[in-house]
């Protein structure tokens, strides 16, 4: 599981784990029934306290993203998708807010910004469609 933890991120470490796992699900890299690594293993991999990982898993469980069953460990919940949609919106909203703040600092009007977004989207589609092996999750 490819997570990256930083001590001076401004976000508590357990929440970084929660957010990144939600992100992986939203991005389609983890799906219903997939198993999360055991607490101890993920703690060793990320070099963080096992209690922190356990707290992140509890948080994910209480919000219905994962289920923990004795014997089979912690797996992504079947009904993880509506939440994943909300998460997608949340992730993008954060990015958009940052972009808006920057545009306003640079005194770029919204219309110009939207034009630029569309222009970048066209370039992006061109470059990504050339790449083989780029995973698309529908």
């Amino acid at each position, binding site marked *: 599981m490819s997570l990256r*933890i930083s*001590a*001076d991120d*401004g*976000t*508590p*470490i357990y929440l970084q784990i929660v957010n990144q796992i939600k992100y992986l699900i939203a991005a389609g890299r983890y799906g219903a029934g997939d198993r999360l690594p055991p*607490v*101890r293993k993920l*703690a*060793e991999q990320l*070099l*963080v*306290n*096992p*209690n922190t990982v356990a707290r992140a898993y509890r948080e994910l469980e209480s919000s219905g993203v994962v289920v923990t069953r004795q014997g089979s460990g912690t797996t992504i919940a079947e009904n993880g998708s509506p939440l994943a949609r909300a998460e997608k919106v949340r992730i993008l909203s954060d990015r958009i807010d940052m972009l808006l703040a920057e545009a306003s600092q640079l005194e770029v009007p919204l219309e110009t910004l939207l034009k630029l977004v569309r222009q970048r989207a066209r370039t992006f589609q061109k470059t990504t469609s050339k790449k083989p092996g780029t995973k698309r999750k529908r």
Partner: protein
Amino acid sequence: MNESVIQVRDLCRRFGKNHALEHVDLDVQPGIVFGLVGENGAGKTTLIKHLLGLLKAQHGSVRVLGHDPVQNPVEVLGNIGYLSEERDLPERMTIGQLMRYQQAFFPNWDEDYAKQLCETFQLDPGQRIKRLSRGQRARTGLLAALAHRPKLLVLDEPSSGLDPAVRRDILGAIIRTVAEEGRNVLFSSHLLDEVQRVADEVAMLHQGRVVLCDPLDQILGSHHRITVRFAQPQAAAPDLPGGGQWRGERHEWSTICNGALNQLQQAVEAVGAQIVEQEQPSLEEVFIDRVGRR
């Protein structure tokens, strides 16, 4: 088992005129990683030496795993794995000889585990200790501290001066130890991002006193990194109640606010400025602010 793993009460220590420790109280609960932080000379090593029974309390009391480490050294030291910054190892021995030597001291020495660690750390049992590199010495010391599966692992500045690969091994050892039922870790470090990653509780020593001792989440959660934007450029750091040291220039200034967020918010509004950023600080930022305030 609810008894404290470490219990220090009103411990004082003087070296001549120098007060190395003053009225130190400490409780380490079972099953956690306890981080001890502080500047050089703050008293971390002196405190650890008391825990190991290498120094006798001049005033106050020390109990480790339920015993006085000076009166019951066998009970205490037999259950502690200790790695010091100096990593004082017998230079003339080979790693294999050191392992047999340790085995004689610790009835719980786990030979299979020692061999496994030797492989993980890529150590050659035939190598003489005096020929080892810095990183290999640290790994050898770590092996000696871990292989008798101690109830309490004590690491005094284990990472100082080591490359990232060895530091990973040390952090990994801390995590594996505490993940096992009934084991505990106390470690001192001035690499605060490492402490922030692995500690459950943190005590901050400053000039021989404990200035902060709380669960890490609580420490980080009760501090805020605040950036204030002023309408007019400020020539000097602002002086607003609720803030600590200020850093910045002209319009924007940042501080670490401890708890009194409302007070600071009101003060900021009263001078016609606004808070433009509010985040959780890192342990390092909290530490620098604490030490700088005094």
